[in-house]
């Protein structure tokens, strides 16, 4: 088995978002009475997802607000047993995705959106008063902006699959549940998304991988 180890050595990508521990003390069924804590728990990851899907901060915030309002209304209409069986996280992602789809359908993404994402400040989340950034970090920001732009060039269904898989760190079955698609379709969409991104990013991928990572671990 040890001969196989290098395969996973450098490129095993940890999930971007830590999955919730599986065996925690059982949480109460989601309800509108404790909706504030649902908002606190999920706003950041839903915002991240909406931003990757739209490439626009304002749109992403509005989408998240709209998604929470819809979730609140839907929860209010559910029977207790429906709420007890509800898988909150995938459900919230699904609502966010639906709101995103509706929004993008009526509003084509523009270059303005891409420019907003290319803003290194937005990426770094650091104030302008902060210390001057080393050149390497500035370069890295530009590279990350390229990745974000490339992601936005994907058709929406592939972008959703790739975002959920690699950025949100969701498993295939979870993505299948969120997108309401068979697992095989999800796998194929993830794969196609990567193929297209590989083509768009081309040789730049090598530059983005941090130095020291062995690109030819198998040879």
């Amino acid at each position, binding site marked *: 088995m040890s*001969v*196989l180890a290098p*395969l*996973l050595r450098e*490129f*095993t*990508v*940890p999930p*971007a*978002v830590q999955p919730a521990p599986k065996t925690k003390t059982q949480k109460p069924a989601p309800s509108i009475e404790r*909706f*504030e804590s649902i*908002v*606190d728990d999920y*706003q*950041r990851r839903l*915002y*991240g997802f909406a931003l*990757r899907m739209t490439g626009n*901060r304002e749109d*992403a*915030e509005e989408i*998240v*607000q709209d998604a*929470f*309002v819809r979730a*609140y209304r839907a929860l*209010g*209409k559910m029977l207790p047993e429906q709420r007890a069986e509800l898988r909150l996280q995938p459900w919230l992602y699904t609502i966010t995705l639906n709101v995103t789809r509706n929004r993008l359908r009526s509003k084509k993404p523009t270059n303005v959106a891409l420019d907003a994402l290319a803003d290194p400040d*937005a*990426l*770094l*989340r650091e104030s302008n008063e902060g210390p001057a950034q080393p050149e390497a970090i500035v370069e890295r920001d530009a*590279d*990350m902006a390229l*990745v*974000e732009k490339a*992601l936005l060039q994907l058709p929406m269904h592939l972008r959703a699959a*790739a975002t959920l*898989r*690699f*950025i949100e*760190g969701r*498993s*295939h079955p979870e993505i299948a549940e969120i997108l309401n698609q068979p697992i095989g379709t999800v*796998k194929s969409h*993830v*794969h196609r998304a*990567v193929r297209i*991104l*590989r083509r768009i*990013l081309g040789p730049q*991928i*090598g530059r*983005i*991988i941090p130095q020291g990572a062995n*690109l*030819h671990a*198998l*040879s």
Partner: protein
Amino acid sequence: MRCREVEALWDELRSEGMPSLRDAVKLHLLSCPPCQELYEEYEGVAFCLSSLATPEPSCDLSKKVVEHIADMRIKSRIDPVQLATVISPIGKLYVGFKENRITFIAICRGEGVAKICEQVEKRLRRQVVNTDPPQWLLDTITSFFHTWKFDDSHVDLSDLTPFEQEALKAAAKIPPGEVRSYTWVAEAIGRPKAARAVGQAMARNPIPLLFPCHRVVDSSGKLHDYGYGIEMKARILQMEGYRATKP
């Protein structure tokens, strides 16, 4: 395994399940340099995506959402729907209203008023208060059964989604005694592919009769369905003067 088959399984290497599949993929990759090269590029893309910064929403996003929802809660409590019973040519109606606008109509099928209150609370997310029908309400309903039209200053769809509102307003443009298809409504609101969503909006219509979801039918002309049964749909259409044309 062939290269193409293995390529479709690369993502398995980062999954926890199916160790035998993972081993098969690893074995193939170790013995196939062209696949190795492509696989490394694939993992490079995955690495790039997972390296993207986790964006932070503005610090007041959570506050905005919570405030909006608190507003909705207050609105629901301080602005309840009043519910009155009105006798009409098709039987007893439960009519919900706020100020001088109708927000809900249910045709009585023998269920008690408690059941109807529950329906209103669920559909409009508002508390319900029972009351006697005011004169404007009686006039609106009486006038509707004479003219099959209504004054839209006496209805309120604001608790519905924008799409539902548009679909119902488009349906209200269908002349009495005539029918149109779900696709027709979808096209009328500029969403030609949304015929199924129009069907959903009609099914969830909180003000049937006035917003005439009964005038919306299959594209083949079949009456399709109605919340109060297809016989009731046929009966209302017949009262309006609709004569089905046989295909």
